[in-house]
């Protein structure tokens, strides 16, 4: 039963929206657990654990040292408290930092060797069998006939990547798509050059912790001029109890390349909150374009606020080359606590950054999310569209920075944030930071109100629509800005959210 079932909704809020939010925030569909034998590192974090993780991944010495330096730094850092979220103090020593299925110790060679439970997990999560076979690391499965539309998947189960699909096909065009642990072994020069160059080791408390203990994640390299022939995707599953997931994603889009990258995540229902601290770094060289889409669906905790994932994520794209373009699209429906600000450093001239977000917080969820657009180059452009919806006793905060540096001449930003409250026990907040340091740039920040544009209504009425129809047409698509930016693969989720309008938004 959903907490927003019997709630008084203020006049003007669309009933379909209420239903859709209820649907999204209702029964958590991915809350089941896979019973599987796991291998754990001892609880807690210290230099031994850092070394152990590095050792399990068979990393070279420089990587171990990199991690240890990060750990040393982390020990001196303070947990940030500026976000509008409250949660019991996290005991960082009461977590497992490394957990992998025992069947993954030796990489399976054939389908008989793959743990059926692992196969069933992906099956249940709705990943097609063909992919499933490859996911489970079966050699040769790539030659089986496939559906016309291909998505290469890297699946991360707790602390390890269990497999990456379409690797060979991608390799033919020069695209490297593999787990980060493999990349550290196979492509050390690339990793050495780019890892930590967008999110420095000491960037923030959670990113520093991640730098020390990240166990796996995905690595993507798109060579110059290559348009990645299929969408790439990483699926994160937290399964083990009391285990934190710390993954690292590194995407390098070389000159003139293009890639669309998808990310999905789920976790079982547990009474005790679990930690997830990821870092995503994207590097864009000249004329490169990256589309990064996330449907974040971690376990949000139960109706009374027990359990759920604490999601502390640092995502940042560095548009180093001129004319490069990055687009973040996120649909945030899960997690008990979200602390996430996918950002764009618009360093090259004529670069572009876009951020589209729908954050839906229900029951006891707390979301503090937004973006940073740092304009450094000339003629840089950014656009922020953020829709926050709160229901139950949830709190939803948009927090963002738009910064126009003195040298970012003739740059442009447009920001629009809307919030909708369903019921009178929840909260919606907006915390934008705007810093303009030159006068040829234009910055506009606005939050639309509940009023429907009279002129638009008049236009529709003139063409024979009745008032209700006209309002529906004008209001509809409040969220479409964001949904349209989602790739096909998220059609299901998009379908579910399409009924949401922000009519009746508070600010």
């Amino acid at each position, binding site marked *: 039963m959903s907490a927003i079932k019997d709630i008084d909704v203020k006049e003007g809020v669309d009933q379909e929206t209420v239903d859709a939010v209820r649907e999204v925030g209702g029964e958590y569909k991915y809350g089941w657990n896979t019973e599987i034998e796991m291998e754990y590192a001892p609880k807690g974090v210290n230099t031994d654990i850092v070394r152990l993780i590095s050792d399990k991944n068979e990393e070279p010495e420089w990587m171990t040292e990199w991690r240890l330096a990060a750990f040393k730094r982390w020990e001196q850092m303070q947990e940030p408290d500026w976000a509008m979220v409250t949660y019991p103090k996290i005991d960082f020593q009461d977590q497992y930092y490394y957990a992998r299925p025992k069947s993954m110790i030796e990489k399976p060679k054939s389908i008989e060797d793959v743990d059926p439970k692992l196969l069933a997990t992906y099956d249940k999560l709705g990943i097609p069998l063909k992919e499933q076979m490859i996911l489970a690391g079966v050699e040769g499965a790539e030659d089986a006939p496939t559906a016309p539309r291909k998505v290469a998947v890297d699946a991360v189960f707790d602390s390890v990547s269990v497999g990456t699909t379409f690797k060979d096909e991608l390799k033919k065009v020069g695209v490297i798509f593999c787990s980060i642990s493999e990349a550290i072994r196979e492509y050390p020069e690339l990793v050495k050059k780019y890892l930590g160059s967008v999110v420095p080791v000491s960037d923030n408390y959670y990113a520093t912790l991640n730098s020390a203990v990240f166990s796996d994640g995905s690595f993507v390299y798109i060579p110059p001029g290559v348009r990645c022939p299929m969408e790439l995707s990483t699926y994160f599953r937290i399964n083990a109890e009391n285990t934190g997931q710390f993954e690292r994603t590194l995407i390098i889009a070389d000159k003139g390349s293009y890639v669309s990258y998808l990310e999905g995540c789920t976790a079982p229902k547990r009474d005790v909150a679990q930690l997830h601290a990821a870092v995503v770094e994207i590097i864009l060289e000249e004329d490169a374009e990256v589309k990064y889409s996330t449907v974040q669906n971690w376990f949000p905790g139960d109706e009374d606020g027990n359990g759920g994932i604490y999601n502390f994520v640092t995502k940042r794209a560095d548009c180093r080359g001129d004319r490069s373009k990055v687009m973040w699209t996120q649909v945030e429906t899960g997690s008990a606590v979200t602390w996430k600000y996918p950002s764009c450093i618009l360093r090259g001239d004529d670069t572009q950054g876009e951020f589209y977000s729908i954050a839906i917080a229900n029951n006891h969820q707390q979301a503090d999310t937004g973006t940073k657009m740092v304009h450094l180059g000339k003629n840089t452009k950014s656009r922020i569209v953020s829709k926050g919806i709160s229901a139950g006793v949830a709190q939803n905060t948009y927090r963002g920075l738009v910064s126009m540096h003195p040298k970012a001449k003739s740059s442009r930003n447009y920001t629009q944030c809307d919030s909708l409250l369903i019921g009178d026990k929840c909260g919606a907040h907006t915390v934008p930071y705007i810093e303009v340091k030159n*006068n040829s740039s234009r910055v506009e920040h606005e939050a639309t109100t509940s009023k429907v544009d009279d002129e638009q209504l008049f236009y529709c009425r003139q063409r024979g629509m009745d008032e209700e129809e006209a309002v529906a047409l004008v209001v509809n698509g409040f969220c479409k800005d964001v949904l349209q930016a989602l790739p096909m693969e998220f059609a299901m989720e998009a379908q579910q959210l399409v009924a949401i309008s922000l009519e009746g938004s*508070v600010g």
Partner: protein
Amino acid sequence: MALAQTKITATQERLNALRLSQSGWSASARADAHGRVIAMGLPVRRDEYWKYTRPDELTSPNVINAEVSAEDNTSIFGSLDCLSIVFEDGIFNAEKSDKLEDAEITLELLSEVNDLDIHWATGLYGVLETKGQAPVDRPLAALNTAFAREGLLMHVKGTVAKPISLIYLQNSDNDDVMLHHIIKMDKGASVTILESGPVGARCNIVMEAEIEDGASLNHVRAQGRNHERRATTHLFARLNKKSQLKSFTLTMNGALTRNEAFIEICGDDSVAHIAGASVGDGAFHHDDTVFIIHDALRGESRQVFKKVLRNGATGVFQGKILVKPDAQKTDGYQISQSLLLDDDSQFLAKPELEIYADDVVCSHGSTSGAIDEEAIFYLNSRGIPKVEATNLLTLAFLAEALSEVEDEDIAEVMERRLEDWLTRRL
């Protein structure tokens, strides 16, 4: 969290240079405020609330010298028919002031009544300031409550016909002026309070206003145009039922100005408008920090701030609308805009919303940009020279904020002063 040692040391250094008054009705409020300053510590750059403004020159025990020219040492409201009350270097000047007499208002000086044992202002002095310390610390206001020796205690009982004009003149180059004013508005009372003049090399002014049901306070302030001034002001107001507060500030120049307003709408159907126009040239840093709390039904609030900046000037706006859970039907509006006349100036803004009620409308907007070249071209093509065209467009830009001043005579004085500034500067 324990205060950082640097903060403790800086606070102690400042406090050592001041002497706490132990006598009279305000003694316990002063002692409490002193305790608050020690507990909070004076602001430092690392504090989130001071992210865009360096507080050092406002908190240091030393005052930076600031000369004032004879021309600037006047009130811009001199031409209006007002009841004038003059403070010179922060000390009341009876000769230059009108008689403190009006049937509808009681006016007393803090310096004169401070040693009394009983006074009506006991229930107000430092009270709204104390409430204004949450959720964000305002230590400079507490410092003022503890140490201000002068100020006007105003008890408004009915409709006061003439504006009360507080004129702050400056003779000394290095005075550190602290003034603490109290305004108690009885039910249905109404008054216009004007503030003007250079004040001092450094000043710290606090105004606490308790506005009873149906009362209306109109506050218009013109901060002097002395270049080297360092100023911090706080306006604390509590609005009861169907009451109204309108506050407008015109700021020209000044090395460092931080104007804070903390407004609490506690009674239903009340209206609070806080607006400001500021123009800055060169080493000018101006900060408007506004916090409006809606804690009643059908409240209306507006924050309208316009800033014109050039030659490396910096404009800051930190605005917040906090709507408490039961403040349904709130109508909140917040706009902050800057016009950057050249490439060296900067605008830093944090327009925040925090909303806990579902049936409200809160909109906020913030923009920054250069003057519209097409509009300049249009005016040029109609024979208006570039400088004049720029002036016209700049005034038009400031008009939305200026229109918040209801009294036409007062608005006109301000507009003339702005025109004057523009023609001199451009």
